[in-house]
């Protein structure tokens, strides 16, 4: 529910209650005033009747007091309190009973006692009530219409800067170069909001920039010593007096350095993928890429005399060519490394998915930690980052990756996002 709707609901409920209460109070006061007026009229008439009787010594005729109905009833009681009361009466000409206000009292005419009752119509008061009710209802209606119009044309306009800011926030991307645009607004609150968001975006961008620089600097700081070690080794092995044992040791250092450098590269790559620092997506034709990779890895698979079977199909994905290269390098490397002698690699590409399966003897892998960093199989001499990278590349593009094991074969299934 929108803020304006919340506000309107409260507004309408309170206004309607106040209006109704006001109407009620108004009604009671007006009707009280009306009754008092009627009572005053009736007392005056009663006095007129008494004056008439005192002067003329007889009861007046009905006609003399039009609109009002005066009745005289002979009574024997000594005293009757003068009192006012509400009553219902019927005029002679009309059949409909009417509500009225009456006064009754005692008069003496030539020694006879009469109870006199004067009744006056109270219709005007009722009419007043109707008018008040109608005015109250009309006011409520006008209020609703006004609220609706305010909502529609004024409030929406007022809130527009807020929605603009909201949309900009939604579209905000850390890796974008452009900054959050600061717009000046008439409303102080929105102005403050914009300023706060602007300040926040600048802060976040600068933090992000620092992180990016840190990763790059970390790479630099580690790669240079590694380059130094490698070049020292390259120079060292030129020495012809070195013996086989010493060369073996150097070879081990080479391997460790190579591993360290690949580890560093992989970690930096992971940071880049996780922070979405890889730019440049294009349509990548997977079939061609798989064919190319299969050719590249063919030689490496010869050692185990593996056969690579590709069930290809034209399939294009929107992705970074660089990451796709890495994805297939890792999948192929894994499929070759964890294979049997004379084993098989089967790659099946369809519109929806890519299945990479290879024969194995070791049994199913532990799916809980399979894609975790630095988790690796018992026979694996890798770094345990390959599948993490594969998984991160997949999640970057909203692809789903699953692992299955059946018929003594590992299978990695990548389901492409249907949107791409």
């Amino acid at each position, binding site marked *: 529910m929108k803020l304006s709707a919340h506000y309107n609901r409260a507004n309408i409920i309170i206004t309607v209650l106040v209006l109704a209460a006001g109407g009620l109070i108004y009604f009671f006061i007006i009707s009280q005033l009306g009754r008092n007026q009627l009572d005053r009229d009736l007392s005056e008439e009663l006095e007129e009747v008494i004056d008439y009787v005192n002067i003329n010594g007889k009861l007046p005729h009905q006609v003399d007091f039009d609109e009002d109905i005066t009745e005289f009833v002979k009574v024997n009681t000594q005293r009757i309190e003068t009192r006012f009361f509400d009553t219902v009466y019927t005029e002679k000409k009309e059949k409909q009973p009417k509500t009225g206000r009456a006064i009754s009292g005692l008069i003496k005419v030539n020694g006879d006692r009469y109870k006199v009752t004067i009744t006056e119509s109270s219709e005007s008061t009722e009419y007043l009530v109707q008018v008040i009710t109608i005015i109250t209802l009309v006011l409520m209606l006008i209020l609703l219409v006004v609220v609706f119009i305010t909502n529609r044309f004024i409030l929406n306009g007022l809130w527009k800067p807020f929605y603009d800011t909201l949309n900009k926030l939604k579209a905000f991307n850390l890796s974008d170069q452009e900054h959050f645009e600061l717009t000046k607004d008439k409303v102080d609150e929105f102005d403050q909001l914009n300023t706060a968001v602007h300040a926040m975006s600048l802060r976040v961008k600068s933090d992000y920039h620092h992180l990016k620089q840190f990763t790059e600097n970390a790479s630099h700081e580690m790669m240079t010593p590694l*380059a130094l070690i490698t*070049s020292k080794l390259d120079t060292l*092995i030129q020495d012809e007096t070195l013996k086989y044992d010493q060369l073996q040791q150097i070879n081990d250092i080479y391997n460790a350095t190579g591993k360290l*450098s690949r580890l560093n590269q992989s970690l930096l790559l992971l940071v880049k993928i996780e922070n979405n620092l890889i730019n*440049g997506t294009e349509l990548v034709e997977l079939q061609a890429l798989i064919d190319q990779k299969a050719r590249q890895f063919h*030689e490496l698979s010869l*050692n185990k005399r593996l056969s690579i079977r590709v069930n290809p199909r034209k399939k294009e994905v929107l992705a970074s060519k660089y990451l796709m290269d890495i994805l297939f*390098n890792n999948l192929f490397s894994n499929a070759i490394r964890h294979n049997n002698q004379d084993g098989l690699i089967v790659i099946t590409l369809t519109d929806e998915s890519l299945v990479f399966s290879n024969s194995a003897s070791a049994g199913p892998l532990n799916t809980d930690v399979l894609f975790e960093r630095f988790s690796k199989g018992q026979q694996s*001499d890798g770094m345990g980052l390959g599948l993490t990278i594969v998984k991160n590349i997949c999640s970057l593009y909203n692809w789903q990756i699953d692992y299955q094991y059946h018929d003594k074969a590992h299978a990695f299934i990548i389901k492409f996002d249907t949107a791409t």
Partner: protein
Amino acid sequence: MKLLVVEDERGLRENITSYFNEDGTVCESCGSLAKAIDKLHNYDYDCVLLDIGLPDGEGFGVLEYLRNNQKNEAVLIISAKNSLDDKLKGLNIGADDYLTKPFHLAELKARVLAIYRRKAFNSNSKLIFNEITIHLPGRHVEVNQHPIVLTRKEYDMLLYFIANKEKVIAKNAIAEHLWGDEMDMHDNFDFIYTHIKNLRKKLLDFTDNDYLKSIYGIGYKFTER
């Protein structure tokens, strides 16, 4: 060939210089952007090896200096940053190649010679090593005027060995040159042996000189001796 090495890590600079100096290449070096521009102002070089992360600024400044002064030095960037953006930036403002640290000296030398040949001979050249003649544009090889057919890997390997003749090259370096470091094959370099064996056999078909020596335990050496 005259070479300028711009690298702030002293040890690395010395190793590169001594590796290149041995076969008659004149190799000078410096460790900062200002000194590099000073040297380039006073002398001409064939090739500049340029580190991007220098203490007094980014190495891109050297590229800009060369471009603004219409100097014709070939530039090979050696950067610790394996960043696509940097690579594209460097190549866009006039670098000829980009090599990421850590690298093998053999790889560096092969790359430098390749861009040197491209610049110096307009890529219309033959590379002659005794009885072996390599026609670079057509990528075909003759031994004693007999054409021999090499696979792509064998051809790359032959060029690599000739660029680093008289040097011991580690198996790791050969593997990285042929397959790139993405192909993470974990210290198992047996497959190189097959390629070396085939290359040696093809060369020996038309010559008696066995240039390819195996240095037991570490790698290979292409040598006349």
